[in-house]
């Protein structure tokens, strides 16, 4: 990284510190102060750097590498992918300076690798993570945790047994906008949360081009049940994590329905899902996702008697917004009396039209980072200082479990309760 890149990175972190406020930084982003005060002229010694390997070099692995290149305390020493085009790209993007492997076990054999980043298809997360933790490596693994709940639990247990860091790629947990929103929620700005809705709507087939038919499942693994739970593990898990975080609880029941009603192209996973999660306090999360209409995009809506938050938009809407200035109020009333329709009969009720309140931004600045850069900074900091945040693993574990149980509820067409044996403290 050159000096100007270092400077802009430091400015970025400082800006985050400034816009989020010190209380948030202290409680949620403890590494940020240390990073913001880093001396850009100081050259890190090899012992200050963490040596890292990347396993899985698809689109996400690629993106994570770009973020990691901005972090001076990370040195990429090895890459691994068993798909030749990705393997070549991994070597190319690291300027052929790293060791490259087709088998991840060879990478884990390298003694002086401190940590690995796992960005493989979902069904491979569990065994690679467990092997890496057992090999004494800290692990950053992309979400969701695993294809089946038992594997998620095994990952957590191995993390706890080995004492090695296990961080799961839920970048919203590191997004300052979300952290600030959670601070407002904890301060009671919405009142008790009574209703949550989340959705993720796209209008595309989610397919990637396949050079030859035998590679279909390797490339389009998201579409096949053997490898993925489709919308639930790839999209919903992010938003369920946000809902859990906002409520401060984890769901104990889920019911749902889904189908393939548009992309009838041989895929096995649903192209639309609709679920209701119930939390111990009685609050529900209503979730839906589809791939045949993008009009509503994605959003997480958190509602309470005092207000609403739309977290993707980064906005908060009070139920009792400050009144308009008196003069405008007066002019509006005059206008309404003069121009409004005069009812001569009919219904005596007023329709519950949506509020026209435009809301306020949770953060006034757009930081142009969805949290991915900061989550990688956090991982580097945690590895360097051997600091484990137990709450992180609980949050990410239950997000994965909820996504997987949601998929099971759709498949089995029944209400699923979280089994006692899957609960962790």
């Amino acid at each position: 990284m050159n000096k100007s890149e270092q400077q802009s990175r430091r400015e970025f972190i400082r800006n985050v510190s400034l816009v989020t406020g010190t209380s948030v930084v202290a409680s949620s982003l403890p590494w940020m102060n240390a990073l913001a005060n880093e001396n850009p002229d100081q050259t890190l010694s090899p012992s200050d750097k963490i040596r890292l390997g990347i396993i899985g070099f698809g689109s996400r692995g690629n993106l994570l590498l770009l973020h990691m290149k901005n972090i001076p305390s990370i040195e990429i020493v090895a890459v691994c992918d068993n798909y030749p085009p990705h393997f070549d790209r991994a070597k190319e993007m690291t300027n052929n300076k790293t060791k490259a492997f087709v088998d991840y076990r060879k990478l884990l054999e390298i003694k002086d690798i401190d940590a690995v980043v796992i960005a493989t298809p979902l069904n491979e997360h569990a065994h690679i993570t467990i092997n890496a933790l057992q090999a004494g490596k800290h692990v950053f693994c992309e979400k969701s945790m695993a294809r089946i709940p038992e594997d998620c639990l095994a990952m957590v247990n191995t993390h706890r047994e080995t004492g090695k860091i296990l961080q799961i790629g839920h970048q919203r947990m590191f997004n300052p906008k979300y952290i600030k929103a959670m601070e407002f929620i904890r301060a009671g700005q919405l009142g008790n949360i009574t209703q949550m809705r989340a959705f993720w709507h796209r209008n595309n087939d989610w397919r990637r081009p396949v050079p030859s038919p035998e590679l279909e499942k390797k490339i389009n693994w998201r579409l096949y049940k053997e490898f993925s739970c489709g919308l639930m593990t790839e999209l919903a898990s992010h938003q369920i994590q946000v809902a859990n975080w906002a409520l401060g609880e984890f769901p104990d029941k889920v019911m749902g329905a889904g189908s393939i009603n548009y992309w009838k192209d041989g895929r096995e996973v649903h192209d639309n899902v609709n679920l209701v999660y119930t939390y111990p306090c009685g609050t529900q999360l209503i979730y839906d996702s589809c791939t045949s209409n993008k009009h509503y995009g994605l959003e997480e809506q958190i509602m309470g008697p005092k207000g609403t938050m739309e977290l993707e938009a980064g906005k908060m809407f009070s139920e009792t917004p400050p009144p308009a200035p008196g003069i405008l109020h007066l002019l509006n009333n005059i206008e309404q009396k003069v121009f409004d329709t005069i009812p001569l009969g009919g219904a005596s009720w007023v329709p519950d039209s949506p509020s026209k309140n435009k809301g306020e931004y949770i953060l006034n600045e757009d930081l142009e980072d969805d949290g991915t850069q900061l989550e990688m900074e956090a991982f580097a900091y945690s590895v360097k200082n051997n600091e484990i945040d137990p709450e992180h693993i609980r949050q990410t574990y239950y997000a994965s479990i909820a996504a997987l149980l949601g998929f099971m509820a759709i498949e089995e067409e029944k209400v699923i309760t979280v089994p006692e044996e899957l609960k962790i403290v």
Partner: protein
Amino acid sequence: MKDTIITAKQKKRELIFLLISFVIAFALNVYSIIYYNSQWKELITTLHITILFSIIIYFLLVIIRLIIRGIAYLFKKIR
């Protein structure tokens, strides 16, 4: 061609009408603050609305005055 002359007296009269319009708008602002129980600082923070409103009142007065003058002119012609 005859020059159009705006006399000092006319200017003074128009300024008085503008002032009256502003006083009406300001008074309405005071009334609305009391009626809707809003904040007194709105006398300052909504000054731009008051000024805009006073201009609207001024033009309404202009229209009313033109109508009155037109009617008066018609009466004068009939006699």
